[in-house]
């Protein structure tokens, strides 16, 4: 090939890539920028800030005009901007073991040095911790409660190893009332129940739209991938219960519908469809996405982003506060390994995937322990190949690129032979 031809191919590739780009991404970036700017200037506008865990009940905060800040979302940004190692090392210098969750480590040190891609998070007026995702957040929020010396509310959602018991239901429901009292005490204002109902409607609407978006990838070829879902997830986490999230997801859902109709796929030649398990490897998203795409494989779905619509069935929008207890307790990570495996099997069938990629994430024990059992169940019940990648969501020291490269190649080879 001569240079001109080379140039032409490169140009075409660029053009093709451009056509496949999801247009809503730009708007999403703008919304997130506005959100963080508003949070940074909250004090000047007499608004209170609550730091809250990713699985925490944000709706009452929205209803009370408190700005929710998600250290986990921030930690993901730290990871994606490859600033995780430095902040993790700083936490280790503060005495935190390198075996601890890298979200927690990077957030704990970032709070003290105001590092990271946006120069740290605005100081909280209160902390809201829901342990439905792990016991780690409990310890992490205790650390921050001591550091910032602000009130901490813990929503304790006992693990449903074997379904939802009346004891758990009563306990969590009582805590929802305690949570409202906590917020009213910290802000000195009463919760407007009409506004709460409205926020509840919007939260459910947002989750339904998110679910709709994720399900567009059942279409072959898939209009988006899990890598896009990792990105678009930020709004359903941080702005759930707002009109902004609903409006945005309506647009995104429409864009996805259009892509499906026009047959625009996210990767050029989708031949293999894969399911992803666990959090993303934030600092290697681009590489992983390219790597799978080079194999004509698309990660069409994942167990992580779907967690923000996995409890829709338990929400009663007319009794939002009542049903919230169950919806927040029965999320993906707060159930037994067997129930998690059932959900994985459902996804394998729904998205018609050829393989399953599991991220064994050193930072997340409740997500990662039990994976080997789920792997066995999946192998037995579906026969699809399963790959387990050893990594960490934010700390790159626990990831070997060359090893991952070889293992993905070998895994894809098996999938190709089977298809």
């Amino acid at each position, binding site marked *: 090939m001569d240079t001109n031809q080379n140039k032409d191919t490169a140009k075409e590739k660029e053009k093709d890539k451009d056509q496949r780009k999801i247009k809503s991404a730009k708007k999403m970036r703008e919304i997130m920028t506005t959100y963080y700017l508003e949070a940074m200037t909250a004090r000047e506008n007499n608004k209170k800030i609550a730091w809250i865990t990713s699985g925490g009940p944000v709706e009452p905060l929205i209803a009370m005009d408190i700005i929710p800040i998600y250290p986990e979302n921030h930690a993901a940004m730290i990871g994606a901007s490859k600033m995780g190692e430095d902040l993790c090392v700083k936490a280790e210098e*503060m*005495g*935190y*073991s390198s*075996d*601890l*969750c890298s979200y*927690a480590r990077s957030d704990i040190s970032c709070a003290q040095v105001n590092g990271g891609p946006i120069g740290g998070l605005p100081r909280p007026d209160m902390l809201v911790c829901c*342990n439905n995702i*792990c*016991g*780690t957040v*409990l*310890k*992490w929020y*205790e*650390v921050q*409660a*001591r550091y910032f010396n602000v009130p*901490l509310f*813990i929503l*304790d959602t*006992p*693990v449903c*190893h*074997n379904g939802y*018991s009346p*004891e*758990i239901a*009563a*306990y969590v429901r*009582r*805590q929802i009332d*305690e949570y409202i009292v906590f917020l009213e005490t910290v802000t000195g204002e009463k919760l407007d129940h009409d506004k709460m109902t409205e926020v509840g409607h919007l939260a459910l609407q947002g989750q339904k739209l998110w679910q709709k978006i994720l399900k567009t990838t059942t279409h072959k070829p898939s209009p988006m991938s899990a890598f896009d879902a990792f990105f678009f997830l930020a709004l359903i986490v941080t702005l759930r219960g707002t009109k902004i999230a609903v409006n945005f997801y309506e647009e995104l859902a429409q864009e996805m519908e259009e892509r499906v109709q026009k047959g625009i796929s996210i990767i050029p030649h989708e031949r293999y469809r894969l399911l992803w398990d666990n959090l993303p490897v934030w600092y290697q998203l681009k590489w992983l996405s390219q790597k799978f795409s080079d194999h004509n494989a698309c990660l069409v779905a994942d167990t992580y982003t779907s967690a923000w619509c996995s409890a829709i069935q338990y929400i009663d929008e007319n009794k939002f506060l009542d049903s919230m207890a169950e919806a927040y307790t029965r999320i993906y990570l707060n159930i*037994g*390994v*067997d129930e998690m495996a059932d959900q994985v099997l459902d996804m394998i069938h729904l998205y018609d995937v050829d393989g399953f990629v599991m991220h*064994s994430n*050193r930072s997340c*024990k*409740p997500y*990662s*322990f*039990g*994976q*080997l*059992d789920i792997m*066995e169940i999946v192998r037995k019940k579906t026969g699809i190949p399963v790959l387990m990648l050893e990594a960490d969501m934010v700390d790159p020291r626990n990831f070997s690129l060359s090893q991952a490269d070889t293992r993905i190649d070998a895994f894809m080879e098996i999938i190709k032979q089977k298809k």
Partner: protein
Amino acid sequence: MKEIDPFHIAIKDPAALAAGIREKSGKIIGYMCSYAPEELIHAAGFHPMRLFSSKSEISLAENHLQAYCCSLVRGVLEDSLAGRLDYLDGTVFPHTCDSIQRLSDIWRLNTNYGFFADVVMPAKLNTASARAYMTDVLKKFKTDLEKAIGHPITPADLEASICLFNRIRKNLTRIYELKSQSPGIIKGIDLFAIVKGAMIMDRKELAQRLETIVLLLEKKDPPPSSAKRIILSGSICDMVDIYSLIEVSGGTVVADDLCTGNRWFEGLIPVDIDPLEALTARYADRAICPAKHSGNTVRGEALLALAKTHRADGVIFALLKFCDPHAFDYPYMKEFLDKAAIKSLHLELDDQQQGQGQLSTRLETFMHMI
């Protein structure tokens, strides 16, 4: 002291001990956490038996738990899968940390000892609703046990069990007091054997033996000790050598904040209120495990108070590698000690590998420092 021999024998071979209990037609329920309501298990006629890792090489558990899971959780699963726990008639998992939470699922899916229960205790303990929930959980566990044995646990059964465990707690507390008053009264290795043995031996026999030991110790009058007074703080400390190594380096353990020590036995169960509420009161008020919440600084304050009460010269944090709740608490607890000018040493332990040479050097250096 020959009275301590049965404890050494018990901890040396728990399987043989279990076989002896089964011969007397006893049924055994195992658990790994100090929040397991032993009183209810015992009242139902089961023998409550705390499980420790036999520290065998991990191979079968590799298929279920990654290498970044703590050696206790992996080790006990290995023992189970290798058939070393076949003496069990059941297991109970009180909710503790993320690792034990998942072990419970893996256990339920891969083992079959008959009785199985998740006793999902609250993670926070300092609210009325959490306490009410804990009582509900205990009630449900009692019902589960009753279903398993086919008859109700009578109030008299439960009261007797509570009294027995209070007797055990009282005597263990007394032994600790005596040790702190005059450290030369009992060797660390013997104290370790007594406490660990107390978690696995027949409880009635145990209560008797502990009383005997207390009487004997009270009569002893050892010469004053010049050893450095040390407090051990951490999760489980299943490393018998650490006590001797501390003594060889010139120290002696005068108190602990361990889940295989003071945290497990401190605090009596009130006997004048409803028994389930009494159990709640004790389990919610005892020195807490870091996987639980009862305020943001309670553990730091408690450790400081313990150090002052026992006139500690230093604190040794004996933390199990990959134990997240303890690792999160370590920096602030150390800071609490630093502010009070109490020196501390951080040891990361692992059931599988125990490099004693390095450990004794570190201990010696620490003893010289304090």
